[in-house]
């Protein structure tokens, strides 16, 4: 469970997240929605501390994964990121072979046994529903794959290091409808093994894939509830206006 209590985030002096409180349950899909610049991506990237690489940023408050605050000084960012995988908006495979892309995290983690790497690569590609498409060309360049395949390869790459949590930052926003559908089916499959937090601009997508939905606006969490409730009977006027497309 990811437990967020009174979390604030700053770019320099500029506060971009204000007092976020929410609990993200295990093995469910939680969607973060909201207009551009509302802080949903910043929040997502706070969970695995990817914002650390931007100078002058700082997080305050608590984001606890299974009770351990990820912002505690004792936390090793490297091991945190191995437990919290991430898939980015733009597919970003390394300019290496398909096999080496998936094996990357394993090699970084110090795995050297060829058979174990082979097995993990295959398992990860299968879980990401791309094995059948690439099994005959594992050694060809990942850059030759289509956009949708590249994105599923990136998911396989994230799964290979065996995380508990998968963060997805608009993983289908650059893909065509069929590739998007595949990603959505995959998300649905994966939630039986992983806790998934997904940022999306696409309201229908949030409604289709997620169990819970959090609506962000201007750096504040406006409403967080079971997805059905958010879409059918939102409590806040703002949420209703946003999901019915009155602004956004």
């Amino acid at each position: 469970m990811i437990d967020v209590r009174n979390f604030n985030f700053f770019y320099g002096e500029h506060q971009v997240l204000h007092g976020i409180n929410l609990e993200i349950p295990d093995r469910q899909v939680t969607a973060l929605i909201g207009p551009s610049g509302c802080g949903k991506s910043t929040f997502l990237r706070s969970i695995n501390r990817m914002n650390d690489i931007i100078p002058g940023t700082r997080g305050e408050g608590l984001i606890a994964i299974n009770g351990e605050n990820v912002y505690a000084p004792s936390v090793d960012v490297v091991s945190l990121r191995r437990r919290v995988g991430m898939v980015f908006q733009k597919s970003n495979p390394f300019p290496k072979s398909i096999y080496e892309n998936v094996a990357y995290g394993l090699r970084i983690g110090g795995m050297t046994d060829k058979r174990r790497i082979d097995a993990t690569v295959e398992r990860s590609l299968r879980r990401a529903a791309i094995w059948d498409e690439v099994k005959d060309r594992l050694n060809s360049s990942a850059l030759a794959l289509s956009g949708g395949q590249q994105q599923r390869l990136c998911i396989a790459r994230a799964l290979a290091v065996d995380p508990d949590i998968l963060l997805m930052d608009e993983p289908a926003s650059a893909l065509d409808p069929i590739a998007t559908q595949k990603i959505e089916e995959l998300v649905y499959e994966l939630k039986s093994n992983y806790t998934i937090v997904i940022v999306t601009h696409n309201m229908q997508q949030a409604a289709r894939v997620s169990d819970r939905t959090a609506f962000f606006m201007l750096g504040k969490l406006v409403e967080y509830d079971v997805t059905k409730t958010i879409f059918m009977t939102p409590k806040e006027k703002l949420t209703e206006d946003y999901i019915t497309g009155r602004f956004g």
Partner: protein
Amino acid sequence: MKSAALGVSVLLILAILLVIIGNIAIHGAKQVTWEFISQPPRDGLMAGGILPAIVGTAALVMLMSIVAVPLGVATAIYLHEYTPAGGSWIATIMRSAVANLAGVPSIVFGLFGLGFFINFIGRNIDRATQPPGEVLWGQGSLLWAACTLALLTLPTVIVATEEALRTVPQDLREASLALGATQWETIRRVVLPGSLPGILTGAILGISRGAGEVAPILFTGAAYYLPFLPGDVTDQFMHLGYHVLILSTQSPDVEATKPLLYGTVFVLLALTFLLNLAGVVIRTRTRSRLAR
């Protein structure tokens, strides 16, 4: 009007280049015999070959690369990967130092090499390690000339490496970090492999510039005439560029030395041309690979 001016200037530049290269090629190519490139000079530099100068230049360039490339690449990695993108004061100072270093006349590098490497570092090594009166390090040598030349090449290598690092998309760094790689692992496994061709191109272009420089080695180790080949980094050496200077200014009979001069210039030009060609080939290969 504009295009006419452009055409004239293009023709003019091409003509100048053709005259220089053509002149050297016509007069120089026929001088390059096996004897010319396999024998030391004879008869007060009036005859014989330029083998010690070829070997000296090659040794100097290699030693210079060993000093300049790692140092330059490390500096660029620090500047581009470890200082914040907004620019810290230390990066600003380093960048302007690099830019100013690139603008320093090469003769000043030569004097600096003499004052710093030979008279300061070399002499002090001698004081600490040699018997009194003995001089081993405190004189011109391959090592100090290579160090001086490395300083001259450094800005080129640093700027080219930073440029190459910039071509590696930030996405890839983030992908690596998100998989639990440390920053150094990310640099070693993703950033450097991605920018290696660009780094090599820059390094080769810098090296080829350094290979033709004479002023920095004037006081730091180039010898007028040596019948033997350098066998140690503390040896003095002959150098193609310096040999050209010597042949054209110190010869008792300049007219008689002309063929040798042409031959030497031809060899020097061929050497730097080959280095440049290697740089261009590597660059086009990278481009086509990225375009795919």
